[in-house]
């Protein structure tokens, strides 16, 4: 526009017109100068999606949810990789022995001398809160969305609440009282303080109850890689058990166990950890179509001495003779006079086509043992033994000889050890809730301390947010 005006200038001769044009020009000029502040507003780049757009379409909202599972699978507490709780808490208790180097952060767990600046401590914390942030973002985004169908909204809200409940459950097992995050606003989250464990348990129960109401009974896709109603119930059963709410624990476990169409008991132990396992309640799907679980890679070795971890002799010796789980779920490696054992629940440490194993986070045996324990605590001893024997008999063992309530409870705890070894820290958490950590570990682990029942809060967290001080006792 300016160019045209200027050309007019050159051709015009009339002084009057010239002045008019001059005035027009000057005013135009100042209009241009006066700030068009809105000019600097830009749209979101096409290579990214804004937080609202993500939740306007089912596909993208779904991809935001599945990314949380991918992250849970690849990092932090529930990963099958080397810094997951399966290996690390196995070392921390009496399941695994350490054969790797001193500089590896795993070593501090094995020697029960975890420092507050331990890398694994920070990774568990950070990846859990990252997934909690993502879950909160989904809850905020889906709630605000106007385009998603109600059924899709329910599914995503249910999953996000399930994940949030799941991660807080592990966080309080590991760290005790922790901050509870409900928003995505960092200005709030940067200075949160810790919430008592009891209150967090209530929030977990609320999340899981809501999740079970929101989620469908059937799995929404092939495999059992997205949580459904029963996954929420199964986790709820565990949370009630940990809270000694025996009645609800038994009811929730029954809700799962009663659906014998989806959850078919597996008599052959070799089939339990397959991707097609009918006792799986919730699995994590590997990264690609030919990969198997990361757990196999973490535990399996083919020649001794072991590169990283082996099963402790304490665990190996705790199997009753004839226990098929020892035969099928562990493997002995011999080199000269020495023999080592490794966990062999997952057998495929490399790729295979078709893939065979998924990492299973929630499985049916736990529900039997939860109900067994809940029933025993309620005095329903027959029912308790029935559930316990289901597990024992499948493992090729005779029915339990326990008679009294306390004997049965002890037998269940013992059974859990040989059933869930190297699975996401069951052993640590069982001993802890039974208040038997000191009893079980102080003779086995040289430097075990009572204060080791809680891990340290990552030192960086306290440095950056003094509101979460003090550090847990003993660190």
């Amino acid at each position: 526009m300016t160019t045209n005006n200027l050309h007019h200038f050159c051709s015009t001769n009339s002084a009057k017109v010239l002045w008019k044009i001059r005035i027009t020009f000057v005013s135009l000029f100042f209009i241009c100068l006066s700030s068009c502040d809105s000019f600097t507003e830009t749209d979101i780049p096409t290579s990214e999606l804004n937080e609202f757009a993500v939740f306007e379409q089912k596909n993208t909202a779904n991809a935001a949810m599945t990314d949380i599972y991918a992250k849970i699978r690849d990092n932090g507490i529930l990963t099958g990789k080397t810094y997951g709780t399966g290996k690390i808490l196995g070392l921390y208790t009496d399941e695994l022995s350490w054969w790797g180097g001193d500089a590896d952060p795993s070593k501090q767990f094995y020697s029960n001398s975890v420092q507050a600046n331990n890398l694994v401590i920070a990774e568990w914390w950070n990846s859990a809160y990252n997934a909690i942030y993502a879950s909160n973002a989904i809850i905020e985004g889906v709630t605000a969305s106007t385009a998603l169908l109600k059924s899709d909204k329910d599914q995503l809200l249910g999953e996000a609440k399930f994940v949030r409940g799941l991660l807080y459950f592990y966080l309080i097992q590991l760290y005790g009282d922790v901050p509870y995050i409900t928003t995505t606003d960092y200005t709030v989250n940067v200075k949160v303080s810790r919430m008592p464990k009891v209150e967090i348990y209530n929030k977990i129960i609320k999340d899981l109850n809501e999740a079970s109401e929101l989620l469908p009974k059937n799995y929404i896709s092939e495999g059992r890689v997205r949580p459904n109603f029963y996954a929420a119930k199964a986790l709820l059963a565990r949370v009630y058990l940990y809270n000694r709410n025996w009645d609800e624990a038994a009811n929730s476990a029954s809700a799962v166990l009663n659906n014998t169409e989806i959850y078919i008991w597996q008599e052959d132990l070799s089939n339990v950890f397959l991707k097609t396992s009918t006792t799986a309640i919730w699995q994590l799907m590997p990264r690609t179509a030919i990969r198997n679980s990361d757990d196999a890679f973490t535990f399996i070795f083919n020649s001794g001495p072991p590169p990283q971890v082996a099963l402790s002799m304490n665990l190996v010796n705790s199997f009753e003779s004839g226990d098929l789980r020892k035969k099928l779920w562990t493997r002995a490696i011999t080199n000269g006079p020495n023999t080592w054992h490794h966990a062999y629940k997952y057998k495929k440490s490399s790729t295979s086509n078709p893939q065979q194993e998924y990492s299973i986070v929630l499985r049916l045996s736990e529900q039997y043992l939860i109900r067994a324990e809940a029933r025993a605590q309620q005095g329903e001893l027959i029912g308790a033994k029935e559930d316990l024997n289901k597990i024992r008999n499948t493992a090729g063992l005779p029915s339990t000889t326990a008679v009294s309530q306390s004997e049965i409870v002890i037998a269940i705890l013992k059974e859990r050890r040989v059933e869930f070894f190297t699975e996401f820290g069951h052993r640590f958490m069982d001993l802890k809730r039974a208040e038997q950590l000191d009893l079980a570990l102080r003779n086995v682990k040289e430097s075990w301390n009572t204060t080791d029942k809680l891990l340290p809060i990552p030192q960086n967290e306290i440095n950056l947010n003094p509101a979460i001080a003090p550090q847990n006792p003993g660190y």
Partner: protein
Amino acid sequence: MAYSFILGVSLFSSSSNANNTLAYATVQQQQPSKISGTITDGIGPVPGVTIAVKGKSLTVISDYKGEYVIEASPTDILVFSFMGFKTVEVSISSQKIVNVELKEDATALQEVKINAGYYSVKEKERTGSIAKITSKDIETQPVTNVLAAMQGRMAGVNITQQTGTGGSNFSIQIRGLNSLRKDGNAPLYIIDGVPYSSESIGYGITSTNMPGPTSPLNNINPADIESIDVLKDADATAIYGSRGSNGVVLVSTKKGKKGKTKFSGALSQGTGKVVRYMKMLNTEQYLAMRAEAFANDGITTYPDDAYDINGTWDKNRYTDWQKELIGGTAQITNINASVSGGSDLTQFLISTNYSKETTVFPGNFAYKKANVRLNVNHESEDKKFRINFTGGYTLQGNNQPSTDLTTEASLLAPNAPALYDEAGNLNWENNSFNNPLRNLNGLFKSKTYDLVANTLLSYSLIKNTEVKVNLGYTDLNHGESSTFPSTIYNPAFSFGSDMSYIFYNTTARQSWIIEPQLNWKASLRDIKTDILIGSTFQQQNNKLQAFQGSGFTSNSLIYNPAAASTTQVMAHNESVYKYHSLFGRINLNWKEKYIMNLTGRRDGSSRFGPGNNFAWFGAVGFAWIFSIEDFFKDNNILSSGKLRTSYGTTGSDQIGNYQFLNSYSPANAYYQGVIGLQPTRLYNANFGWETNKKLEIAIETGFFDDRLFFTAALYRNRSSDQLVGIPLPGTTGFASLQSNLDATVENRGLELTIRTVNLQTKDFSWISSLNFSTAKNKLISFPHLEESTYSNKYVIGQPLNIQKVYQYNGIDPQTGMYSFEDVNGDGKITALEDKQTIKDLNPSYFGGVHNQFKYKRWNLDFLFQFVKQKNFNTAAMIAVPGTKFNQQIAVLDHWQQPGDASTTQIYTSGANQAAVQALYNYVASDGVILDASYVRLKNIALSFDFPNKWFPSMNCKARLESQNLLTITSFKGSDPESTSIGFTPPLRVITAGLQFNF
């Protein structure tokens, strides 16, 4: 260096027909008569001199013979003026022939107009800190990169060449590092008023043959440049607001000049060789080292793969692999042609340029560049309206090996076998020899197309008031690829084309700018006032895509992604950058003695967070020209003197686009076969620019008619609001937040320039100039440094460019191994705890000494560049002494038995793990950080003007030029300037050329 304006660009004006000059006369005189004459400088004719009739608008220009014809009345006075010479006035009275001898004027420097971007200012009235070079400095240098042309010539501007490969990058720092972020330290580049983004157009993994991704600055053709002005202090840079923090580089290209149509051409041809080679062991020394290494390790039977010493390879063979692999000669060709001319009202310039530079590697590789430019100026008859258009289009093609051979050239055993077998095929010596030439099968190819166009319209609205609009457009398209075909592997692996892979990257960048401006000049009593207000609208769109393709059906299909069995998108980034601002300047000049310059800018940028879009920047500068004060009036020594100071704020918006947004982006992790979407970052509305507060005080003095000119500038820049990843507690879901941290970086320094006219006689002149810069860079504060990702990189109170290393304690006389200080005393050498020694890699001072000799028709011009610095001794870092890799001869002084004091540790074949670890620690210790200071004959140029009688119809000049001819250094690595490991050092270039005008 600033004296180089002395001769203007259109040195050779061309009218041979005296009548033609009349055509420029626009006003006829009463009773006029023809006056003619010849203008000389005592040696030869001076073309291009403006001859004006005093008080009239009539002007003519002298032709290439220095002759002119003008119509004037006997009462008139003729004024002869030419840049760099004293203006001469002659009364005509009854003369018909007026011959004039012009005298070079050293003081003319003070009258030179300095480009300050939105305005220009006379050198003597300048309040800001601006360094300048002109085409005179550039044309003596056989270089293809604009930054290369500036090297060593400007105080406070530190430029280093990263590698000698054609089309490679230079790094630049103007007054030190201001930002904690590596990519936040680039200056703002402006070409003829159009901002030119220097953000890389390559992608790390596709630019494998260079230390960094491809820079777009190669698109600027040095031969097109009329002048480069570098703005440094607040007074000069605050008008660029949020983009002025790291300095501003203003590039002005050549413009058409009035006069008869002039053709110019230049042709030069030359060669380039690697500047320095490392002194390596010969076969005898090498094999002795190997034998001793095995003996030390107690190995008596040489292993099967010790081909060099176990008899597989000829033990008497010797090859200097550096000569063989990087010892070639690069051919350098440069051709320029231009046509210019025009009338009083309309002038034009069309120029074109072609250059080609091959490599020092064996094989047929080259970097080529071609460009064409058009400049047209027009002025209306009433002189009120002016338009100036410049458009340039540059094409670049680069074809290089995708892997630089420099590393292998130094590593290969000197008795390694021949490169080719008798049949002329690559020799793999029965699979014992990993032939280095296999690397030449992998290619780096790039093509860049770049358009820069701008139009400047101006109109003189009313008296003293001018309205201007600057319109600009740039369009850049770049594509590059690196291939790694299966043929880069030894055929023994029997890899097929299914193992071949390619990385490719395309970048497209467009930008436009509109800048309306209003300029008003007035004199109020003794105060001259110059007021400018303006506004900027700018948008830049950027799109980068990078792919990997692998597994091809055939290696000949490697450039066809459809033939790849897997393709992976490695990056896809699109961004829009919008920028809008208001700027202004008020300049008050009282009696040309006291000058105050106020500049300011209100910037809005799409890169800043919402509610934080706008920011104010401003500066005030004062100058006091004390030499015209009464008390200096009658002295013969001080000819000019000025004291100036400035203070103000500038900013940096090199913070990336969209960094405040909480968007979702693809996560590169699959679940259920779908790529997840992850929250990219936290929402941060407080996200803004980095602020740099600059303070400067300077003195500029000329003595003895400015034959000795001295300037000194002291500055202190404090850069704060550092945009870094601020560490966050994990409860926020993220480890850090890109935000402005209350961290401060300080740069303070001293810059000196001295220019002396040592001798000036009729036939001979000698002018010298020196620039010297010394600076201290310091991180003053950084809250929560320990928790941040920068904790191992920066130390408060230390410069940014430091290395934390082990303290080297010499060789343990007992074990013969390198030993280090165990700082925490835990008996182990561990990186985190024991790397506590801090080494500053910033140059402690640098500068250049420039001399120009002129004897009759001969011109000799040379520049020594000097840098005092420490850097990694790359030579000591190649490999463990004693292993199957060659070493520099320094390793001969090595430990052999207890009690030996030596500089190299015990040889090992690799079996001595402790010795291998000691070498690794050594490489990360202060033992390898040595003096890397150097003095380099950066540029030397000799030229000869052919006498007119040789070629009566043209002016002709022969040139002999060289870059990096001589280097004086005690540095042990290959080159002290570019210490990036594994890349070709800069080349020593020698060219001969011919330049002509007619």
